[in-house]
């Protein structure tokens, strides 16, 4: 450990600063012989909540991508505790890595550490989920919350339309939503949902429940039951995120409304949800291949190192198709899912690991 990336970089090769200027769109074309990855790169990984399946999924993505590049790394798990986010990042910085990948850690809780990293010239890259914008975050190649929410909402509207006996295709009915606005990405999802529903005049949002993050499971389950009771005509529930689904399913089960109320959600990372989809307790979940976020992040970091240029904030976007936004429902659910090696909840639609591994082999000769 303890390398100084500047010096090792310059000793690695001499044709370095050439392509620093045309950062955007450099991508594949920039692959030239001689642009080897500098030696001695190391990385740190900061988990926001190591017990969360989504966190593990994204984390494994980063780890496997780094393994493919033979970059050693060390990890810290903040266990969802802001104080530990800060001290975990401190510990990572102490090891003087070339880069730190943070898994959906809100920059606000680690501002002091990010400033220090900026001074030391260590880039901080956010992977997995959207966080508040910050100049201290060098890169954030994450799936779009709007997109995930939009496909889920559209799925829901389509279902409601299909169920409409009087004028098929026109969605009607009462829906409820679960969300938590203070988290920015979840706010984006709810707003998308709300905006799209407003355009369907037959659909009415009868409840908008804000999750109690101190006691999410108990709160969601009891709120589900209450909402179902308070709104006997409820047709569907839209939720921001996958962790709400087991308690929502349990609440519906208790209220005996599993069949009556459709449940659709954005974001899919927890395999427990696959089980619920297969059982028909949850109808569909908007999925993005979260692991792709990790590989894109590592790729951009590697390119910037190889090409001796700043990290490009937008270059990853040309690969956004890898997220392969899609709905997982009973028709296409694959419950044999394993976190490794698939990194996506359903059979890979786009084989991004293969793509990047091939690309790196070609560029860096690994």
């Amino acid at each position, binding site marked *: 450990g303890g390398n100084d990336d500047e010096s090792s970089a310059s000793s690695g090769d001499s044709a370095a600063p050439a392509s620093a200027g045309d950062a955007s769109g450099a991508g594949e074309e920039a692959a030239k012989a001689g642009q080897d990855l500098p030696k001695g790169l190391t990385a740190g990984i900061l988990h926001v909540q190591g*017990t969360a399946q989504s966190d593990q999924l994204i984390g494994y993505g980063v780890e496997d991508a780094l393994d493919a590049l033979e970059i050693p790394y060390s990890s810290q798990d903040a266990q969802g505790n802001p104080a530990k986010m800060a001290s975990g990042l401190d510990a990572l910085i102490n090891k003087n890595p070339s880069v730190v990948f943070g898994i959906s850690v809100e920059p606000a809780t680690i501002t002091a550490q990010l400033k220090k990293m900026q001074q030391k010239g260590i880039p901080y890259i956010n992977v997995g989920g959207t966080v508040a914008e910050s100049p201290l975050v060098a890169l954030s190649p994450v799936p779009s919350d709007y997109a995930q929410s939009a496909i889920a909402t559209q799925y829901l509207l389509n279902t409601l339309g299909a169920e409409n006996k009087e004028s098929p295709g026109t969605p009607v009915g009462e829906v409820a939503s679960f969300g938590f606005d203070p988290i920015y990405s979840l706010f984006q999802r709810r707003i998308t949902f709300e905006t799209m529903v407003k355009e369907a005049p037959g659909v009415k949002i009868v409840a908008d429940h804000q999750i109690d993050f*101190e*006691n999410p499971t*108990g709160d969601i389950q009891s709120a589900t039951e*209450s909402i179902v009771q*308070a709104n006997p005509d409820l047709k569907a529930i839209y939720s921001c995120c996958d962790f709400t689904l*087991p308690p929502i399913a349990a609440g519906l089960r208790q209220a005996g409304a599993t069949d009556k109320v459709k449940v659709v959600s954005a974001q899919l990372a927890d395999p427990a949800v696959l089980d619920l989809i297969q059982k028909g307790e949850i109808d569909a979940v908007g999925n993005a291949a979260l692991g792709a976020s990790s590989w894109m992040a590592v790729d951009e970091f590697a390119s910037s190192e190889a090409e001796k240029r700043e990290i490009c904030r937008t270059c990853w976007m040309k690969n956004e198709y890898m997220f392969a936004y899609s709905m997982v429902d009973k028709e296409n659910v694959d419950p044999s899912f394993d976190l490794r090696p698939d990194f996506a909840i359903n059979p890979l639609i786009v084989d991004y690991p293969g793509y990047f591994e091939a690309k790196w082999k070609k560029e860096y000769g690994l």
Partner: protein
Amino acid sequence: MSTKPLSPAPAGAGAGGPTTVAEAEARAQRWRGLGPRVRRFGVIGTFLLAFAVFAILKPDEFLSWDNFSNILSSAAVPAIVACGLTVPLIMDDFDLSIGGVLAFIGSLVVVLQATNDWNYELAMLFGLLAAVAIGLLNGLLIARLGGSSFVITLALGSVYAGLVLWVTDSQTIYSGLKPGFLSFGQDSLLGIRLPIIYAIVIAVALFLLTERTVLGRKFYAVGENSTAAYLTGMPVKRLRTYGLVLSALAAGFGGMVLFAQAGSTYANAGSPFLLAGFSAAFLGAALRSNGRFSVLGSAISVVLVQTVATGLVIVSLPSWTINVFEGSILAVAILLAPQVRIWK
């Protein structure tokens, strides 16, 4: 001889000012112009008022059997945990490990049946034994070796939370749970969901134990004055250990019910029960005429609080006002509570 407390409430909670009961009462009467009859039913009245508002706003939804059953079933696990932790609290021991114990025992039982393919009854039995062992350890460190209950149980709670990650390998376990185990958490008996029945049975059992048996009276004696209890030959350490074992058992059982209800383990399952359990116990104490912790008080408080929370969801207010209303109802109720204490 008069039975009325006339000496200053001996350094009691909230004492400070009023030296005699009569004086406190007189003073209270002065600032609030309410008749004693009204104040007597202050706490319950505040809640009833809140319920009435819910019932008027959403009569069909709030006053339905479904809603009632929903409230009770949401209250079941918190009530089990709260009743359990009330027992050591009676003896002035804080058991802050309940969150960790709940998650650990629950996960253990799930892992044993799902991963190790044990019989689910055996797994549950093992879970209960493990809970007893945890309680005994707490008792050893706190009652025998004299550690501060607050710090020891907090520390051990963190250990158990770590063990949860270890036994579950940091995964959510949702497959492999035996059907019998799921029925244990999800079935109904005579139209009443099983967790509600468990909660009632446990609350009644612990109520009888603490209020009606000789052992329970000794628990109270230790809580009132542990030196006096020791001097009168009561096995103070053993009694305190019993209390900690009971709370660990209740938390462990609560964990099993929780995961059986949910049909899976999940992360951080225990932590919400910590604050909820203690606030129920303290609210229950404030409701009682003598200000003491009691199993019944805790159980009732859990249900009251859950009813308010559900009612607020049903009338569907903006989310921030839910927090505000919930807090305000609680605060108003508690301010009327000392009256009850005075008038007995």
